[in-house]
């Protein structure tokens, strides 16, 4: 590869490519669910790969991160049917050669919000983790050339065979035994074959039209996130981002209302395009009872075109990401927050970084210092080459260059938050140390099942997230681990990793190139 080829000259065209992001649930561009937590006393890691069609078969793998696990079962539960409407659990089979890995298949038969009960049995008794998963249709499968060839061959055989049978039936089937077909019969036979051909062609054409109409209906019903429109309004010289839901299904009440996820009704990643230099993680609030309009004070960042990815969770446990772009006026340098009808959320955070760099494919990750040389964030166990669809460890260590020891503090109940964006906007993931699930969704299902249910603490509307602070096995006071994730597609990505140190939210930026999967 020449020098030019090694450089990714990728300057964002998110505005054009946002169409690719239409397949978004709690994330964009990937349905896979990553979860790391404890089932009772057993630390486990769960990956669910939904099929993208409904009804369909999802794959689930459960890895024991500790010792003593003997048996794992998995059980899908649909939100409106509850545990009593769940089938008996399936035993996840131990993958040969790896005593810690168990796998099974999950049948997701209906559209909507499901949870999976992962029950672990072993030396320390029984424990359960509940992992939410959304069942939606997102993909259209193309037929492979080989299958197409086989089916065309069989169709030609059936077509010509059928016509031959019609001709033979007219020519010979009613002949007395031992007699031969007359010329008249043979002529009738040919005519009937002609009619037979017309009938078969008609049937095939009708079948094709029918197939096309089914396909069109299927395409129309592929999952699309709730439609929103965004604008930035100015009040008291302060820029306010307003997100309005315009979706007809939402307005007709076909979606259940929204519930807060770790205390916020909406978690929004808001970045300037195309350079992704200005970054913010903000939390719009509903300003009406029907949850149609949401507002948030825009952080003191420069103006320009911005893209937003807003995570929401419904009462059913269904989580999805709303997507839009909006133009933000230039920052005047002044903000008058006192007289506004909304407050700046103390958990809002932002960072003015630097534009997307050219990525050297042979040196996959480029990281930033956190705060002007004061703190450093390091990606631990970084592989030489990051490959799409292959698990990648996401562990980060924060170092205080000037003062030595530091201790990470909870930020919105989590040890860390990460946003992962493919630079064309077609992939977006919002991760926590427990994985990619919506915790509100998990808590909803835990309460429904009555197992290990956590009750929201009443003070300040925040939940108890002690269980979500990260994997104890891999966490020190200076580092944080996420469950290994898979990048669904090759290309250039930017990752923002956020931690809190001494009351201050720090944002690390990593630019990387993900290589295409290696075909075996």
């Amino acid at each position, binding site marked *: 590869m020449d020098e030019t080829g090694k450089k990714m000259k990728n300057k964002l065209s998110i505005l054009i490519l946002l169409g690719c992001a239409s397949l978004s649930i709690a994330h964009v561009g990937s349905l896979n669910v990553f979860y790391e937590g404890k089932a009772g006393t057993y630390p486990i890691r769960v990956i669910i790969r939904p*099929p993208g*069609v*409904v*009804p*369909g*078969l999802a794959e689930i793998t459960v890895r024991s991160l500790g010792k003593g696990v003997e048996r794992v079962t998995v*059980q*899908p*539960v*649909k939100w*409106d*049917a509850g545990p*009593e*409407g*769940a*089938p*008996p659990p399936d035993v996840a089979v131990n993958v040969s050669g790896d005593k810690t890995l168990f796998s099974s298949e999950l*049948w997701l*038969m*209906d559209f909507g919000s*499901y949870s999976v009960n992962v029950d672990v049995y072993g030396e320390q008794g029984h424990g359960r983790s509940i992992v939410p998963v959304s069942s939606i*249709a997102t993909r*259209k*499968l193309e*037929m492979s050339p080989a*299958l197409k060839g*086989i*089916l065309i061959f*069989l*169709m030609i*055989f*059936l077509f010509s*065979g*059928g016509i*031959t*049978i019609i001709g*033979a*039936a007219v*020519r*010979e*089937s*009613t*002949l*007395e*035994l*031992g*007699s*031969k*077909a*007359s*010329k*008249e*019969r043979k002529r009738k036979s040919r005519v009937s074959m002609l009619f037979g051909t017309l009938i078969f062609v008609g049937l095939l054409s009708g*079948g094709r039209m*029918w*197939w096309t109409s*089914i396909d069109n*209906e*299927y395409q129309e*019903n592929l999952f699309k996130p709730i439609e929103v429109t965004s604008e930035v309004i100015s009040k008291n010289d302060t820029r306010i981002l307003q997100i309005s839901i315009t979706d007809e299904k939402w307005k007709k009440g076909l979606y259940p209302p929204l519930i807060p996820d770790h205390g916020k009704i909406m978690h929004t990643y808001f970045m300037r395009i195309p350079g992704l230099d200005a970054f913010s993680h903000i939390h719009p609030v509903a300003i009406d009872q029907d949850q149609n309009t949401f507002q948030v004070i825009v952080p003191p960042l420069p103006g320009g075109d911005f893209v937003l990815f807003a995570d929401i969770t419904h009462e059913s446990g269904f989580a999805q990401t709303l997507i839009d772009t909006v133009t933000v006026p230039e920052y005047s340098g002044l903000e008058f927050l006192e007289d506004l009808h909304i407050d700046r959320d103390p958990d809002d955070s932002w960072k003015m970084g630097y534009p997307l760099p050219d990525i050297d494919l042979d040196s996959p990750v480029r990281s930033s210092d956190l705060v002007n040389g004061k703190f450093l964030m390091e990606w631990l166990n970084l592989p030489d080459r990051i490959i799409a669809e292959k698990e990648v460890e996401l562990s980060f260590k924060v170092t205080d260059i000037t003062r030595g020891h530091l201790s990470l503090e909870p930020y919105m109940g989590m040890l860390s938050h990460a946003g992962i964006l493919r630079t064309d906007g077609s992939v977006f993931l919002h991760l926590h140390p427990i994985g990619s699930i919506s915790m509100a969704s998990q808590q909803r299902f835990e309460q429904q099942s009555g197992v290990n249910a956590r009750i929201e603490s009443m003070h300040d509307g925040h939940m108890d997230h002690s269980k979500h602070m990260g994997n104890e096995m891999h966490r020190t006071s200076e580092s944080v681990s996420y469950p290994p994730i898979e990048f669904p597609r090759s290309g250039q990505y930017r990752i923002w990793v956020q931690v809190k140190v001494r009351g201050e939210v720090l944002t690390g930026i990593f630019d990387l190139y993900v290589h295409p999967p290696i075909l075996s």
Partner: protein
Amino acid sequence: MSDDLNHGPPQVSGIPWYCYVIAIASTCIAVGLQWDISWHMTIGRDTFWTPAHMVIYLGGILGGVTSAVLVFKMTFFDKNEGINSGVRFWGFTGPMGAWVCIWGAVAMLTSAPFDDWWHNAYGLDVEIISPPHMVLAAGFIALVFGAMLLTLVQQNRSNVSSIKPFSWFYTYTSAILILLMVILTTEYSFTNKHHSLEFYRISALAYPVVLVAIGRSSKLKWPATTAALIYMLHRCIMVWVLPLFEGQPLLAPIYREVTHFIPPPFPVLLFIPAVAIDLIILRPDRMNDWIRSLAIGLTFVLLFFIVHWYFSEFLLSESARNWFFSGHLNKPYWARVGPYEYEFWEYDYKVFGHPIPLTPVSLTGLFSVSIIAAISARVGLWWGQWMRQAKR
């Protein structure tokens, strides 16, 4: 020019082995299909290796292999018989029914990879009526039709003393064909739709053609009625036997308690219009077939409508909630419990939840349905006439 006749009248001695085999093959297909549907409604979880699938495959293999054996025998080992009583096809010779069976078996085979791809592309068995399922349906209908032809030619070649067993074989396989039509129209024939025109329209299209063809071609005394009664008995046995076996849903969501296999709905009462069809077809006068079709169409719809309008009310009532009619047992695990189960529906719902209004029954609607039934009957007369003469 008439066909040359080189030999004397045919002699049929004994019942050929393949008559039994293809009757068993047809039965396997019908039983397997109903079992499979019950499996989907009860257990839900589906693999290639479910017992119901195995029974269907067994039917396909028995029919296909038997036909292939007949063809090979006629082509390579008994050429004289092939020339005298076979039908030529791409250089091979075999009985007409064998060719149709083989075509059906290949169509069933074709549907397998197509259906598998369809599941992956659009989701598992969302509807009974889907393109790959229609290829499969064409396959098993052809296979059963081939079985009918194999027994029919034996009936048509027989003299008076030996004709009866073949007529029974033929009428039995014909009854299986009626059963297949009933299975195919399941989604349009739920009892809750019996006060809507759609049910009568699909019935007028599907049933007269088969009943009339049987009526014209079988040599039994009451052929259409007999076939309709055999079909009913077959269906009733499934209604009564399936709930005797325990079964539990293995897929979520489960909206009702299911502990035993779900039976199919109680069969539609085809024997009543079938009696009328037999009477009209067997009329000794020389009625024109077009007029005969019209008479059959009108009579079929009139009787079928009156019977089912009231019988469906009974089936939805508490009186039918017993083992015999299974009015309370035939809902799948995914159907929510509610009063709608015992009401007549005004809407149908497509896969993606769009409601489609059902058409109320009206006099003009029934008249249009009668025309459909008459056309169906006319095709049945043509078809039956051809089958009546089939010898090979």
